């Protein structure tokens, strides 16, 4: 076979089909472990409820440091498994995580406010909201990333 010749229609069709299959396999490989989204959501919820925990614990900052450390370990463990470096390209892919961080900080502030007002048990509400939003947000963000991989 002369490799410098243009392929015929069946060969071209076959090559395009192979590229499609490779894209699908790559897309599957970007799927993060199933535990990642709920684990990070749980860590975020724990962090949001930390003003209440600090109230119980005299060693104030230990829970925040522990939460950050666990989050870093979970993310690194999950990131090392895909063999891909991706970067969200569309604007919505960037706005999602930014909105999530702003929401997280807002919930954290609300928790502080609730503890300061003597309504410590109500911290459960922003913690649950954080858990649900972070979990759903991460799932949607991952879906968007996979869609961009095929675009």
């Amino acid at each position, binding site marked *: 076979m002369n*490799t410098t010749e*243009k*392929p015929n*229609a069946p060969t*071209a069709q076959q090559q395009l089909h*192979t*590229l499609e299959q*490779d894209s699908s396999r790559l897309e599957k490989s970007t799927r993060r472990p199933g535990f990642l989204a709920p684990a990070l959501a749980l860590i975020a919820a724990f962090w949001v409820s930390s003003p209440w925990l600090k109230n119980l614990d005299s060693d104030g900052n230990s829970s925040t440091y522990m939460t950050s450390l666990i989050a870093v370990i979970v993310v690194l463990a999950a990131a090392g498994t895909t063999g891909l*470096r991706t970067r969200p390209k569309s604007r919505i892919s960037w706005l999602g995580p930014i909105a999530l961080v702003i929401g997280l900080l807002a919930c954290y502030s609300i928790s502080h406010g609730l503890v300061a007002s003597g309504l410590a048990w109500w911290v459960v509400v922003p913690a649950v909201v954080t858990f649900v939003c972070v979990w759903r947000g991460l799932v949607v963000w991952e879906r968007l990333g996979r869609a961009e991989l095929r675009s």
Partner: protein
Amino acid sequence: MTEPRFDEVIHAPLRLRICGLTRHVDAVGYQRIVDTLEVSPAVVSKHLKVLTEHGYVKVDKTSSLARSDSRKVAWVSITDTGRDAFDGHVAMLRQITQEPAEQPARS
């Protein structure tokens, strides 16, 4: 829209597939390429060398937490030249598949 353009370097099936894998991501790990293409590492290295020599891809080596030894992990990323060549070649393949089939000569 990309101009359909035959590319001799990318025309080789495995090189086309390597460019296809790297086209929509920042970088792909060397082992991920080997696993996806299901060919030996030596074959992938040979084709990567050709693509690198033509400036279509670049290979960066970084240390990784995923490795227990001190060896570095190779990351393959497509260059702008490689992206243009790949898009042009794929456009050419699509053009070929859309062309009407040749009519058999009448006797």
